């Protein structure tokens, strides 16, 4: 971009550019060459390598076997459940049970954690944003919450895992506190190192993100809309049901979709918290990078491509919802 022919060429104002249209065109494109070169080197080439190897076997022959391997061992079994009723009656109920392999159950747990923290974090974050923007609280509460949300949504990974171990680990502060109140959460089935513990930890960066994105949206609700609704005789419920909610819903759902992706791609927090003991897609990929933990190099590529597909599928409704929400807000 700063090469000398360029700077001579560009001396003229844009309207009075050189006679030959081709020269101008070439100059125009030169300016974005570094960016596209970077994108090719650090985004597209690595992605293409994953893509190509995902469709190759160990000898480089094209195959779909790696993707087929993701579904290996997938079976529906019919498990007889003996159900006993009071009074000595019992009968057998046979229910279908989906047996998942390691890869599919990793996807299933990742998706469940992402869904739980997107919906939970989304609702909680929305309520907090509502409370500070429209809930009639003093202004300082709002700026404290916004500042803190900014920090918390960026506080993730290894230190976040440490903080939650000190809080809700076996000898964590909250664990001990609840025990002294007579509630042993670990006896009750809670563990920081499984689904619920990880969801709790992810929530620490999920709901503050919702607060950060939803607060401006709630602020964008114009006073006139409410006044107009009231002048037409609408109750508060009717205002929310027919005016505010339809305007806000796309951005609420869109942000939840974003939170889903945020949790789905998370690796560092889970790895530091569980030491790689929880079966998530990201953890499996990590193990695969270190040394073919799945005993099938191709399966690792298929796994990574599957993640890109899920994230891509997530981005489609996100872009759509964002566009819809921008119609009214901002």
């Amino acid at each position: 971009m700063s090469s000398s022919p360029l700077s001579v060429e560009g001396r003229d104002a844009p309207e009075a550019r050189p006679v030959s249209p081709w020269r101008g065109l070439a100059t125009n494109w030169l300016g974005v060459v570094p960016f596209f070169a970077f994108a090719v080197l650090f985004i597209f080439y690595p992605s293409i390598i994953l893509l190509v190897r995902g469709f190759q076997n160990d000898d480089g022959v094209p195959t779909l076997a790696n993707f087929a391997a993701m579904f290996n061992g997938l079976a529906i079994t019919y498990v007889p459940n003996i159900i006993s009723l009071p009074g000595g009656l019992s009968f057998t109920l046979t229910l279908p049970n989906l047996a998942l392999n390691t890869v599919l159950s990793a996807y299933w747990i990742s998706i469940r954690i992402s869904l739980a923290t997107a919906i939970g974090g989304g609702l909680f974050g929305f309520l907090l944003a509502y409370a500070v923007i429209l809930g009639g609280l003093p202004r300082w509460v709002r700026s404290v919450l916004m500042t803190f949300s900014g920090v918390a949504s960026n506080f993730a990974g290894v230190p976040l895992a440490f903080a939650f171990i000190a809080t809700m680990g076996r000898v964590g502060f909250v664990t001990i506190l609840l025990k002294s109140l007579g509630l042993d959460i670990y006896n009750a089935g809670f563990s920081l190192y499984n689904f619920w513990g990880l969801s709790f930890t992810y929530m620490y960066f999920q709901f503050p993100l919702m607060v950060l994105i939803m607060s401006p949206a709630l602020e964008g609700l114009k006073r006139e809309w409410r006044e107009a609704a009231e002048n037409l005789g609408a109750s508060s419920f009717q205002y929310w049901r027919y005016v505010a909610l339809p305007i806000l819903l796309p951005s609420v759902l869109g942000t939840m979709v974003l939170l889903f992706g945020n949790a789905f791609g998370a690796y560092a927090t889970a790895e530091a918290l569980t030491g790689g003991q929880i079966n998530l897609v990201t953890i499996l990929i990590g193990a695969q990078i270190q040394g073919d933990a799945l005993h099938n190099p191709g399966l690792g590529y298929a796994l990574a491509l599957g993640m890109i597909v899920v994230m891509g599928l997530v981005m489609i409704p996100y872009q759509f919802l964002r566009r819809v929400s921008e119609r009214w807000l901002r």
Partner: protein
Amino acid sequence: MKRNTWWSWFWILLGAIYLFAPLYATIAFSLKAEKDIVSSLAYRQVLQDPDFWHTFLFSIEMAVLTIIVSILLVVPTAYWVRLRLPQIRPLVELITLMPFVIPAIVLVFGLIRAYSGAPFHITNFSAGTNALLVGGYVVLALPYMYRAVDTGLSAIDVRTLTEAAQSLGAGWRTIIAQVIFPNLRVALLSGAFLTLATVIGEFTLASFLVGLNAFGPYMSQLGQNHAYESAALAIISFALTWGSLGLIQLFSRGVPGQAVVGGPR
């Protein structure tokens, strides 16, 4: 209309507990390194560990390189797209949003598989792995860097400024360095400190590319057998995040916090 603020206070209280309990617990725990007394031993031991300083400085260095590279890459591109190539704007924006689709762990997987083997063998020497690390961080920083710069550019009249500078005889280098850059100071500082806050303790890319040279993997390693020191480290890195984001608020005069999505979680 009279409002009942009881529910608002209830949710805020719940939120405050969620945000502060882990901090309180971690601070309390980090001060218990000696039996029965409040002690700063854990902090002293962390700060006296040469590995702490070694990895910390390494990660700062990577963060600074990331900031420099992403500014040099994003500013001229965003400027050029706005001035001369508005038709490729959707494409450039799409590329900057790629980290939303490619999670960090998949990115590092791709980088390693693409460049560790023949014909590149880039991971065989440390300058090579550092370059991959910085490149990966620049990719992860693209969404917010590009957005910040582009928003900054939309606030100034790029075309008029460019024409004015050109009619005074300025070349492209001068225009970008002396006209465009100063107008983007706030946007760039915000982006820079956000990058600093997220790159210093980054674990996903660092652990696979440079291992224990970087601060994130160092913290993780320490956490495996030093409980009190790891709590102290968590507090130190929380303070760093707080400091970086506090500085952003200072520059941007109260514009509420920014967040990285899909970054180094």
